[in-house]
């Protein structure tokens, strides 16, 4: 419609030519479609059970809709344990993560081989899911919160180091030049030229890691790492869905509260 109007006014105006479809994009889309089909086919994906077996699910959902509220207070110890696990793991994991972050940035680590080795180690560390760490540590130190803490520490190092090292890469080079000109060594360079610049970001990553640890408490507990997840696992295997749903709702509230708390701390300190 617009083209008619413009041509009527000025006979010389031409519409720009439509760009030719890009071959890599089309190839990529076809590849993605084929992969999707293959993935769905090989696992026998079908949404039909959603309609056929809906009544099965509804029975469970009905039990979920009448939560057994007093149960939340009966497992008070498990709540304290979950929060304590998250705090310990965040302190140790994010603390070590800061050290690894300095080793994983070209800005602070001027040794080529150590830099590459750290990057490699961190990507291997990040490639394993948290559940794998819990399983490993449960096998090593037995079922209990120690296994959960150790697993979360390894998991947190990967996240904190990645986020912080990216921040270090992007810092202002001025202070670096200043300390270099004053002849500082690797440690004082990191402490006085880099750390003050990344501290606000690091604190917000610290809080983020803490939130993640609370969120993953379900996973940790189900694999035997202590805390509220262990309670969920026990109640789930006994088909006590009313108790599970009360805990899930309470966990949701806890996560929201911690979100609010960390937002407040971020505003206050960052």
């Amino acid at each position, binding site marked *: *419609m*617009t083209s008619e109007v413009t041509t009527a006014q000025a006979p010389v105006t031409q519409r720009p030519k439509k760009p030719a479809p890009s071959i890599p994009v089309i190839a*990529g889309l076809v590849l993605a479609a084929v992969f*999707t089909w293959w*993935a*769905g086919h*090989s*696992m*026998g*994906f079908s949404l039909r*059970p*959603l309609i056929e*077996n*809906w009544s*099965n*699910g509804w*029975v*469970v*959902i009905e039990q*979920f809709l009448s939560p057994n509220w007093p149960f939340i207070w009966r497992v008070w*110890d498990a709540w304290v*344990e979950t929060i*304590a*696990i998250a*705090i*310990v793991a965040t*302190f140790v994991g994010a603390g070590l993560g800061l050290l690894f972050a300095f080793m994983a940035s070209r800005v602070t680590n001027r040794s080529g081989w150590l830099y590459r080795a750290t990057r490699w180690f961190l*990507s*291997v560390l990040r*490639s*394993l*899911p*948290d*559940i*794998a760490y819990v*399983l*490993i*540590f*449960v096998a*090593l*130190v*037995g079922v*209990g*919160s*120690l296994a959960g803490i*150790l697993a979360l520490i390894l998991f947190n190092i990967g996240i904190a180091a990645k986020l912080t090292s990216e921040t270090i890469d992007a810092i202002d080079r001025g202070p670096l030049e200043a300390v270099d000109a004053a002849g500082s060594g690797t440690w004082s360079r990191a402490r006085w030229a880099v750390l003050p610049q990344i501290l606000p970001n690091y604190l917000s990553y610290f809080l983020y890691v803490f939130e993640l640890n609370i*969120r993953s408490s*379900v*996973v940790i507990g*189900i*694999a035997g790492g*202590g805390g509220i997840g262990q309670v969920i696992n026990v109640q*789930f295997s006994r088909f006590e*869905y009313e108790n*599970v749903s009360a805990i*899930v709702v309470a*966990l*949701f509230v806890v*996560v*929201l509260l911690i979100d609010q708390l960390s937002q407040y701390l971020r505003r206050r300190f960052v």
Partner: protein
Amino acid sequence: MSAVTEPAAASATPTRPTEPSKAKVTLTWITLVVIFGGAAWLSNAKWSEITDVFTEGWRYLGLMGEGLFQNPFSEPWSGYWTLAFERMMESVYMAWIGTMIGAVISIPFGFLAARNVSGPVTVQITRAFLNLIRAIPELVFAIIIMLPVFGFGPVAGTVALGVGAVGTLGKLTAEALEGIDPGPVEAARASGAKGLPVLRWAYWSQVLPEVVAFWLYRFEVNIRASAVLGIIGAGGVGQLLGQLFGQREWEQIGITLAVVIVVTLIVDAISGAIRHRIIAGSGQHVSSKEKAEANL
């Protein structure tokens, strides 16, 4: 040195600025130590057993290594490698289909939760809903709805991943939409476009690269999350890992973990490369900019 001493001698007041008080910093450190100590005590962890990590750890690591260095083409080992690879690919498929489901569902929610697209009431309601989904772990979705409906197996895990992805993807899409340049929207409105065409050609085309990058990122996250779902019987490599750890088959665990690490790293590398290409465009001027930064 001499440059410093001369003006100091010349001026009458060579006082250094007084150091700021350290009381606040000390207080913060004391608080942190107290919190940490209290948490370490309240966590009920049996700290004395931490030595097992080093004694037992080396032994198990040795057993895992033994499994890795057996001839992978001889009898029981070749089967372990194939099984681990098949299950890991199942996890990748689960993550992919789950991300696809989440991506498709999250598009309308993203528009509904963007302040510059929808009204304030719709935005608040949609955001609350997205936050609710984000707060519930995939594991809970799987337990509540998916396992009873779909039965044990990868499909239940896939749908749980899909529903779980809606929360994050919807929020990220909404934030991307709020950050667009209003120019094209005005241009589209000025030329008489209304409703869907504006959303499609002014909003959506501006955020598409960013949103596709979020999808790929979510795919990387979902590969790890799908392992978690396996532990409750929702398919994938997690189910295999759970069984193996139960039986303490350390040689086979070593092989399986190696497959998980290698496949995850490869998928991350491919997905990361595509994300960078999508965000950075054709990459010619970007690569020169990166070089300039690297030289600094």
